[in-house]
């Protein structure tokens, strides 16, 4: 189904997760403006053509505390090339008619103009939601209210270290989907999936009726298939960003095609 002007971000996200039966949704992460504004838009289009169900689009930030070396370097390169949040919103606007776009943006960028202003700009660019990795539950009320008003889903994150009380509170306030961070650490490719992953997904499922997507440390087709059997969505970041840097849109399309095929096979 295509995005319509009437649907809220949460509804478009829900449709994207529900659109393919039992297969898990594939959500690649791309750094907005990396390796250039044009190439990152082309990479997003290639990702959609190759089977991405949602796009997580990163807004480059000077101090990305949740990111490992690959995404950090991509963001730094984008900033050095002069990419602004406004540029990333233009990329978002170009992709949004074809696929739900969730912006991954750090808190200070959201707060710089006030959360209402940022949420309104993001909504006007067609974004379906925001992921703010340094805005935990305890600090999120103001931004969530601004997103609700603008029709955006503020996606909440759960970590393996989250206590049962926190998982319950995060689930109760979640919008769109819940982002389960697979491991203690920053983004980046890992050789092995963490062994406690299925337990984490079960804990999150018990706290919400929304889809649960897993990210951090997933890069190979085998890992994606394993996670896809547990969760409703699979988020792949550093592997895709690395492909965009090394081989542009064609390389991104190839990686996404391989991951989508692995999810279809299950």
């Amino acid at each position, binding site marked *: 189904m295509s995005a319509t002007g009437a649907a809220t971000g949460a509804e478009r996200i829900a449709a994207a997760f529900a659109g393919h039966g039992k297969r898990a949704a594939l959500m690649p992460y791309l750094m907005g403006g990396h390796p250039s504004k044009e190439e990152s838009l082309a990479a997003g289009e290639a990702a959609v053509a190759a089977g991405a169900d949602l796009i997580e689009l990163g807004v480059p930030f*000077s101090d990305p*505390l949740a990111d490992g070396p690959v995404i950090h370097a991509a963001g730094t390169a984008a900033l050095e090339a002069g990419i602004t949040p406004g540029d990333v919103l233009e990329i978002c606007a170009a992709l949004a008619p074809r696929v739900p776009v969730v912006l991954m943006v750090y808190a*200070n960028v959201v707060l*710089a103009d006030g959360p209402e202003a940022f949420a309104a700009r993001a909504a006007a660019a067609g974004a379906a939601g925001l992921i703010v990795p340094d805005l935990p539950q305890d600090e999120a009320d103001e931004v969530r209210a601004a997103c609700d008003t603008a029709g955006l889903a503020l996606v909440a994150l759960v970590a393996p270290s*989250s206590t049962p009380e926190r998982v319950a509170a995060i689930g109760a306030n979640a919008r769109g989907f819940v982002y389960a961070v697979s491991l203690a650490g920053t983004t980046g490719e890992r050789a092995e999936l963490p062994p406690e992953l299925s337990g984490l997904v079960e804990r999150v499922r018990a706290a919400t009726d929304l889809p649960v997507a897993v990210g951090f440390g997933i890069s190979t087709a085998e890992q994606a298939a394993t996670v896809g059997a547990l969760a409703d969505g699979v988020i792949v970041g550093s592997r895709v960003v690395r492909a965009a840097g090394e081989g542009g849109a064609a390389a991104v399309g190839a990686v996404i095609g391989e991951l989508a095929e692995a999810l279809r096979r299950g």
Partner: protein
Amino acid sequence: MREREFGPYGGRFVPETLIPALEELERAWIEAAADEAFTAELGELLRDYVGRPSPLYRARRLSERLGQDVYLKREDLNHTGAHKINNALGQTLLARRMGKRRIIAETGAGQHGVATATACALMDLECVVYMGAEDMRRQRPNVERMELLGARVESVEAGARTLKEAVSAAIRDWVANSGTTHYVIGSAVGPAPYPAMVRDLQRTIGDELREQVLTAVGRLPDRVIACVGGGSNSIGAFVPFALDADVELIGVEAAGEGVATGRHSAPLATGARGVLHGAFTAVLQDADGQVLEAHSISAGLDYPGAGPEHAWLRDEGRVSYVAVEDDAAVDAFKLLSRLEGIIPALEPSHALAWLLANPNPGGVDALVLSGRGDKDLAEVLAR
């Protein structure tokens, strides 16, 4: 706006992964601070190992020149040469109590890294210090000191390769390793409970100062003056005077090449609000919310944020924040060396420079001499 620890300022703007670790740390700190055995052990170390209380010295020739009494709180005489050891010892003692055997820290000029490496040697804890590659080049002797003390110094290559990136690298390490590791943050910055915990560990400066001035002159000082980077020596000095309405509190930031040039380290004096390293506070940033690089001759003040309690004290009007340029700080560095035979660090040289430009004839001022200047000789002599 939401109420945080310091009016609208403070909070925990960090990945969810770290929240349970911060909650654990807050509980552990409250318990330790109320435990007589813990405070007794820390007090004994501060006395016998650090050399506290640090002296209050009436600067004879400086007082004569300015026509007033200037009292210097001699944190430069502490073991390792600065106030940083007060915090580093307290936090490593807390980490040992919490069963964390691995310590990480960030450092700019190296003073906090040396203090943390020192405390870890004393308590037999593993120590990793993150330091910007550019700072490692500029501060080679402190890198060697840390390594001699048994620490591993990790070079940080991101961004301008200075303090801001070193803090970010330490936070990323902590996100991955908080189960086994304590992060000894070096200033009154970062997510809660750090700003309040570091303040509590540094308030020994102000508690001693208040009593020492009362003993020396029979009354409180007119002004307490301290430099502010992240703001740990200053918050420690100011807080015991917070309710003494007649005592003026002056925080001196680094104006670098001049506030008007944009190349400075004065987030409090220039007014911006934002999130840096886990706290909502005063931050140098552009209109998009990108954090800007700070500029100062003093590596210890070369940081684009200040602690959240300072931002609140500014808004409340309790502390006045001013800024002093590199050149004036260097002049003050040289002047104190010649007048008093005390070589100050470049950081408190900013506070001295403000006092020289704004004397208080016939009055009594106290100034925190937060560290000694040996580390800065090359920087000053090269100018």
